[in-house]
């Protein structure tokens, strides 16, 4: 779900006078409630939605987002803003250069800009997907050999402190 879709949702919800709205889709939970006191303890906002929320004043909708599983445990990570690596093409996802070879990366690895994260095979072409930022691999959404669509999330990366200035 991108920023534009969230904005459209907020507009729709405001327009229809709905006071609370919850949506769960592909590992993301979105909760929008109007006229509610701003939540601080659970106010977990992905970094890229902050500007939009900042521009909304009460009693406009409050945006609450998190993962469906144990949101409180994951909250500190999300607070720092995770970078989602999405598939730039439709194809087949591979975590390793060849069958049986060690994977390019594993959850917990620290990675550098330009480091190969995975391969997307499209029409027999092996497209290496490189990291655009430095950071730590938090999550891998896809299993080896699984087909992926354009725009499908592949990894969550926690940006390294230094790379935050140049996202």
């Amino acid at each position: 779900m991108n920023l534009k879709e969230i904005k459209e949702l907020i507009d729709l919800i405001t327009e229809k006078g709905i006071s609370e709205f919850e949506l769960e889709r592909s590992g993301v939970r979105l909760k929008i409630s109007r006229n509610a006191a701003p939540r601080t303890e659970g106010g977990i906002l992905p970094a890229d939605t902050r500007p939009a929320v900042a521009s909304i004043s009460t009693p406009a909708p409050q945006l609450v987002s998190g993962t469906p599983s144990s949101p409180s445990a994951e909250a500190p990570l999300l607070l720092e803003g995770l970078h989602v690596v999405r598939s730039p093409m439709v194809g087949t996802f591979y975590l390793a250069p060849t069958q049986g070879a060690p994977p390019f990366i594993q959850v917990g690895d620290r990675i550098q800009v330009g480091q190969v994260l995975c391969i997307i095979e499209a029409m027999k072409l092996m497209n290496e997907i490189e990291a655009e930022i430095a950071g730590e691999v938090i999550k891998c959404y896809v299993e080896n050999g699984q087909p992926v669509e354009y725009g499908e999330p592949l990894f969550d990366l926690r940006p390294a402190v230094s790379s935050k200035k140049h996202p």
Partner: protein
Amino acid sequence: MSVPRWFSMFKKILVANRGEIALRVICACKELGIRTVAVYSEADAHSLPVRYADEAICIGPARPSASYLNIQSVISAAAITGADAIHPGYGFLSEDANFAEVCETSGITFIGPSPDLIRLMGDKSNARRKMKEAGVPVLPGSDGGVYSAEEAAEWASAIGYPVLVKAAAGGGGRGMRVAHAPVEIAAAFEAARREALHAFGSEELYIEKLIPEARHIEFQVLVDHWGRALHLGERECSIQRRYQKILEESPASPIRAEQRREIGAQVANVLSRFGYTNAGTVEFLMDEQGRLYFIEMNTRIQVEHPVTEMVTGIDLVRSQILLAAGAPLSEIAEGEVCLKGHSIECRINAEDPATFAPSSGRITSYHVPGGTGVRVDSASYTECVVHPYYDSLLAKLIVHGRNRQEAIGRMARALEMFIVEGVQTTIPLQQRILAEPDFLQGNYNVRFLERRQGRPELVAK
């Protein structure tokens, strides 16, 4: 479904298109019991083809070059979903010989003719030459490409003005310029060359005699893998604006039964001899004396195919799928096809009636007409968004009547009952066309709309 045992039907078809034609292909697949895969751009995530297909794969961002025109993404989507055939619809990759070739080498059936035939007919200058050799009347024009303004001037004076300078790779009215007199030929040549290069990446041009008062008549043909060919009569598409068709009908008012039989049989024979397969449309211009001249051939399903379906009772998209799977023509029709009654189609485009600019935005209210003899092919719905990235066709409104008069009356009431709010449409324009005495008498040609452009009551609100 009575299919002979010796050809095997596809299990899963990927629809490499969007909008109403994607939905049209999905309908045909459902009726044949074939599973479907919709491919879509991010802008079309909430589209009806995505909803109705058995599977849907996002292949890229809204920009067509990065999604619907991206051969690698489309083929890759077919590979990961295990589709055994691809229907390209119209536009996008439908007449791309390279795409058809990639399908072939990837072991996926391209639902259409072979890459060679697509390539042959895609070069309009070449297609003209081949048809002329086969004995089909063509307009006087250059034999082959024209590569300089001087050469263009020589051909033009040999043929006689006015002439059309056309892009060999052209279509849709782009890369086309008129020269009425020798003073205009150099400028027309240069302008057509620039536009052709920009639009098609090829600057090859050819020259053809211009018939100002022509009618646009096209014949629908089906050919199976054994060279058996069948024509399904003609369509008249003379109501055009800037070479874009607005309203089509079948049969064409000026075509008599003997002429239909004669020309139809000729084009069917010629295509069979060329080794053409699947559905195709052969386009002609008719001069004031009623003579037909070949202009070009389209190697795909056409937007206006429903009018032929209405008068023949033959489902053309279903036929395309059957023929691609290797079915014999006898699976589709037995013997000669006769046209029953009359059919008219209006292309309901989202556009500003005064400026003709595409009108994008959200449709706030949408209601389609129904009733006897009315068909609507559309992927629009209330609250759907008309995107600026794609063509502005909202719906095709098609009617069938026992005769032309009944069809016109039916179309008039159906247009009146068609509600679209939120974007502007061509409906008022089509309502005015239907009220024109010349249209009612079937007395019109390709200049019908152009002539009335100075008349605000016809073209603007």
